């Protein structure tokens, strides 16, 4: 007989292939997700940026757009990851019973958790890669460190995809997603995406913002594309790795609880 059960990486690639096959039909939906951060870059970064004479970041003068762009880069990974790990996962779990189908085969809940999280991560990664090219074309990349920006966005995608998929397993109806939307917009606007975190002063608020995951992603991307990398960058990396691993653990546990009844 020609088959042996899949290894974890084999399972990952098969689940990814399944998701890719379904997306071939929905490529327009796919493209719109990419455009949003680009529009923000153009309207806020370039448009509003034209009103700002000089902008100092990290002791050096940079165009305002070069400050906003890495924020949007992180946001594109964040948005992309959320699209698949929330609504789509909920639909597959509760309505399509896709994971029940997969569990009738040698695939395990761990395979499903990894496969779906990585898919969300990849979607964010594709958006980020495209966005990075836009940044390059517009002259908004100022350091060779930027080659690490893509892995950084994959890390952001992993962290959000994993935790959001974990939260999604607790949802009981589509209304519950209002909570995610409610958290998504302020995170997008206030994670030092459009203005530096100093604007929050030195109080608790700043401390809160600095502890949120998208902020960690935004500063990490900004440090890389502007070349302001320090050992503090590792804090962000560590934060996002731990967040992603926690999400992975949670998803696996929740799928066991929900599906293996």
């Amino acid at each position, binding site marked *: *007989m020609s088959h*042996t*059960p899949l290894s974890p990486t*084999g399972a990952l690639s098969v689940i990814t292939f399944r998701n890719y096959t379904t997306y071939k039909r929905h490529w327009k939906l796919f493209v719109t997700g990419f455009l949003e951060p680009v529009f923000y870059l153009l309207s806020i970064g370039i448009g509003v940026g034209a009103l700002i004479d000089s902008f100092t970041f990290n002791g050096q003068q940079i165009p305002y757009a070069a400050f906003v762009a890495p924020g949007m880069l992180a946001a594109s990974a964040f948005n992309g990851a959320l699209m698949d790990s929330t609504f789509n996962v909920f639909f597959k779990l509760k309505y*399509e019973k896709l994971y029940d*189908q997969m569990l*009738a*085969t*040698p*695939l395990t809940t761990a395979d499903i958790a990894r496969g779906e999280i990585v898919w969300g991560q990849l979607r964010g990664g594709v958006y980020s890669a495209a966005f990075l090219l836009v940044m390059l074309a517009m002259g908004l990349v100022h350091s060779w460190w930027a080659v690490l920006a893509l892995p950084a966005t994959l890390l952001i995608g992993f962290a959000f995809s994993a935790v959001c998929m974990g939260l999604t397993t607790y949802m009981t109806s589509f209304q519950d997603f209002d909570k995610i939307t409610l958290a998504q917009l302020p995170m997008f606007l206030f994670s030092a995406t459009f203005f530096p975190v100093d604007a929050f002063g030195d109080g608790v608020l700043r401390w809160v913002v600095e502890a949120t995951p998208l902020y960690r992603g935004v500063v990490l991307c900004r440090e890389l594309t502007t070349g302001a990398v320090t050992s503090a960058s590792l804090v962000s990396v560590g934060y996002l790795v731990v967040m992603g691993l926690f999400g992975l653990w949670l998803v696996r546990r929740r799928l066991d609880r929900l599906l293996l009844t």
Partner: protein
Amino acid sequence: MTDATAHDPGTAHALATGSMITARDLRKSFGTFEAVKGIDVDVRRGEVFGFLGPNGAGKSSTMRMIAAVSPVTSGELRILGMDPATDGPSIRARLGVCPQEDTLDNELNVVDNLFIYGRYFGIDRATCRERAAELLEFANLTDKAKAKVEDLSGGMKRRLTIARSLINRPELLLLDEPTTGLDPQARHVLWDQLFRLKQAGVTLVVTTHYMDEAEQLCDRLVVMDKGLIAAEGSPRELIAAHSTREVAELRFGVGEHEAIADKVADLGERVEVLPDRLLVYTDDGEHVLAQVHERGLTPVATLVRRSSLEDVFLRLTGRSLVD
């Protein structure tokens, strides 16, 4: 098949005993509710084994434990000689599962449902493609290969689900209510396909609440009710053990059956009162009818038929299979 399975620890055992499934005092609880209350089952290689019982009997709960997706609450369960708690993926690699509700992938077209499902088993692309084409043929869906799943009729979806469960050439095929919701013609087409699989050496486990399906398909079956097994045997053995050769059905006016039952009680071995008719169990139905008329009783309609599994169920549980 032999070279791939030779490494599995359970196979030697299963081959030696010829046992595909062994359950001892198998139980399943959901919270405080016990859906399966301690059953013993042995399914032998190559047979069609049935679980016959009404809705809520615990058939699906049992099937999900056998499919190695639902943890056993207590008792012992071995599938192909392996323990589902520890060897889930290895067991599932050799099972075909057709769940009670069709769980097709609506985001994929018909042929991709087969192809990608095969890939979940780790079957290489070329083989998946080949088998998908064969199975479309088997399920009479070749001309629907590129159709969306949601555009298929109920019968087509069921055939696709069954075809999909065969993609890994399973040794053991689990079918949970395979024909529920299908029209009579579609049911016969399915039965015919299941016979062909049996002939090809596949062991089949079928649940059903249709007694005709159980009689047609099963070599052996258990009658299940309220989480327990009430009887076990071949359809013929069960009928011989729990019913008479024939049944005389007598239909009187509405509400008269209860009263008339006493007047015919001595004519057969046993009389059952249903809301719309009386069943007199006997080895000679025509003789019973003659005596009924002799006693001046005038049923609106009469029928003499052979005993069925429905009668066995009625005898064992006091209730009808389909309410």
